[in-house]
């Protein structure tokens, strides 16, 4: 009997939580908004999602094979990268575009840094940034929801309309349109309602905490209200800026990426507020109407610094 006894250091029991489980839970939480995107923009959106995921898995397989690692490509990590990349693409891009983006995201965004757990930048967002600078026209051509297509197919996003001061066209856009997704936008960001269902699931299961999303959104709301009005200070339409663009997708699903966000709760608050400020600055002052993805990427680089200054205070630490 003695020869089958296991000996190890405590604890001798472990929670059922696992990396794989978390990854697939995030995938599950993203399904409603993907379904909404496909419903709103049509089958092409579904094809983009599938190509993006398969390309990400293929890229992961290439690197893992080359590095002779004993890791499954189905640990959910690459799948999630592919899925998130597709969600950040307009619904009419040619199908080679998500493939190129996914390869960049997985290989350059993640694997060159050492793979899962080691990357500095959010892989899906680095893939998007790569596509944005390489093929800007494809990346900024937006499609109307299927039922609104009469004469023209393309449209501008509400944030772009605002940026170009096309306030007349914005008057037709209600909060309800913005909330359910009756607007132009990326595949996965378009329906705020669907995103919130997934976000609620992740919060309920405690896979993400409130710190980053809440501070991010509140910062956007305050800065937009104070400084992004059509005329005077404190006349901005906070709700419009929350519901438009990729904020909800970014705040709940991209900025909360474990690997590229701070460890401690205090650090997460700093991160969320900083993302909000940067997003506001980009939206207000840059040539881009939207700044969520670049804000998160920039703040990703600041995470080691944030971590360094936001360690929790030890229990019973003497204040010397």
């Amino acid at each position, binding site marked *: *009997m003695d020869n089958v*006894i*296991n000996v190890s*250091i*405590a604890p*001798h029991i472990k929670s059922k939580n696992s990396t794989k489980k978390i990854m697939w839970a995030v995938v599950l939480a993203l399904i409603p908004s993907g379904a909404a995107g496909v419903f709103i923009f049509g089958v092409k959106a579904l094809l983009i999602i599938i190509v993006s995921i398969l390309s990400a898995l293929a890229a992961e397989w290439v690197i893992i094979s080359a590095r002779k690692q004993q890791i499954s490509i189905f640990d959910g990590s690459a799948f999630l990268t592919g899925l998130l990349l597709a969600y950040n693409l307009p619904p009419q891009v040619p199908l080679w575009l998500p493939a190129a983006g996914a390869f960049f995201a997985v290989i350059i965004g993640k694997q060159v840094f050492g793979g899962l757990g080691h990357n500095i930048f959010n892989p899906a967002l680095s893939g998007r940034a790569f596509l944005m600078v390489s093929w800007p026209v494809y990346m900024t051509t937006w499609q109307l929801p299927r039922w609104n297509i009469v004469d023209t197919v393309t449209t501008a996003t509400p944030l772009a309309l605002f940026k170009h001061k096309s306030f007349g066209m914005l008057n037709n856009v209600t909060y309800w349109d913005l909330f359910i997704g009756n607007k132009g936008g990326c595949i996965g960001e378009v329906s705020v309602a669907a995103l919130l269902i997934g976000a609620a699931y992740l919060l309920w299961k405690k896979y993400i905490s409130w710190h980053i999303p809440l501070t991010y959104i509140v910062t956007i709301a305050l800065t937009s209200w104070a400084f992004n009005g059509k005329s005077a200070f404190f006349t901005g339409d906070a709700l419009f800026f929350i519901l438009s663009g990729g904020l909800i997708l970014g705040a709940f699903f991209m900025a909360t990426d474990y690997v590229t966000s701070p460890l401690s709760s205090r650090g997460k608050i700093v991160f969320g507020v900083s993302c909000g400020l940067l997003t506001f600055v980009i939206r207000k002052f840059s040539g881009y109407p939207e700044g969520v993805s670049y804000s998160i990427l920039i703040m990703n680089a600041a995470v080691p610094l944030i971590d360094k200054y936001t360690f929790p205070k030890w229990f019973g630490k003497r204040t010397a």
Partner: protein
Amino acid sequence: MISAAMTFPGGVHPPHFKKPANKIPIKKAALPKQVVIPLSQHIGAICEPLVSVGDKVKPGILIGKSDKFVSSFVHASVSGEVIKIEQRPHPLSGLCNSVVIESDGTDEAGFTQQESNADSLKPQEIIDIIRRSGVVGLGGACFPTHVKLTSIPNKKIDTFVLNGAECEPYLSCDHRLMLERPKDIIKGMLLIMKAIGVTKGFVAIEDNKPDAVEAMRAALNSTLNTQHSIQIVTLKTKYPQGAEKQIIKVILNKEVPAGGLPFDVGCLVDNVATALAVYEAVYYKKPLYERVITVCGDAVKEQANLLVRIGTRVSDILQQCGLSSQQPGKIIFGGPMMGFSQYTTDVPVIKGTSGIIFLSQAKVDKSVESVCIRCGNCLDVCPMKLAPTTLMNLIKLRRYAEAKEIGVDNCYECGSCAYECPAKIPLVDYMKLGKNG
């Protein structure tokens, strides 16, 4: 009375696994034919044997002592003959010089079992009796109780906390003691309070043991006099609620300073089983030679809370409780979160053994360490508010000095981080390495 359950920041919620042992009354274990009594069952100096091979001993006879202040006497636990004094496996520390006693089966006590009057005892007399009786902290730390109770200049203690939290999964020995001997435990508590000269006390119990809360409350009401102010405190069931630093934080909202001890905040914490041992030592002159342990786990047929003699080996306990069809894959002394796994069934129960868990192969955790995904769970659950993964990264690079700078020494290895880690990183292993580096 404080009724709402209170708790501390951090911690984890492992499944309780308390049933069925927590419903089964304590019973006496069969007398072992042989006991192996290690001469070190406590924190501090190891005892010198006072007996030689061939000597006849009885339960309660002193067989080992040390003149060092931080040490604790060791007593025989069965009547019979000393057959060997040699190095034997010890549940916590490899090999240890141990007295092996062959029982003659008569079990005749080596002390006068008679209730004596304790009311007239002075504080120092109580502490002396505790010292001579070899009482140590029975929650697992095994710190000699008389040392803890001895006053230290400039450290004024004003509060005593009786710890009945029993936050480790599986274990229910303290729970059963609170149900079956609440009055004796309260009497022991009052003795300790008298010894250290405090009148303010708390009894802390987790809210998954409402029957124990009731039993202790009833005992308290029938025993209490007007000089004492003692409250029962219900704590939220969460691990490591029973850790003394967390208990003090919850009840008194004071943080024991890093590197300090409870007396630094004027407090002293003892386990309920320790209070009972104090009661028996003072009222009955009974040295600590037996204790209640929880025998449980899916690999054992008869789960139980057993009153066993110190020195009873695992093999004897298995003979009594029986193996289920499962072969044990792991034998754990203590709870599953902080307990010590054993490599042989020759190890004996010592004073600090609160339970023995027999896990089947299927229940043994065999998860494989994978890469940290920086989820931050370990920071959230750490009751000492450390940054376990940051420490791990430093320790992997052997940068021990930096690890100490960010507090690795404050880790008391509760295991919450390693329990919660989705990447199954054995963080406690790294913390141990960092502390010794």
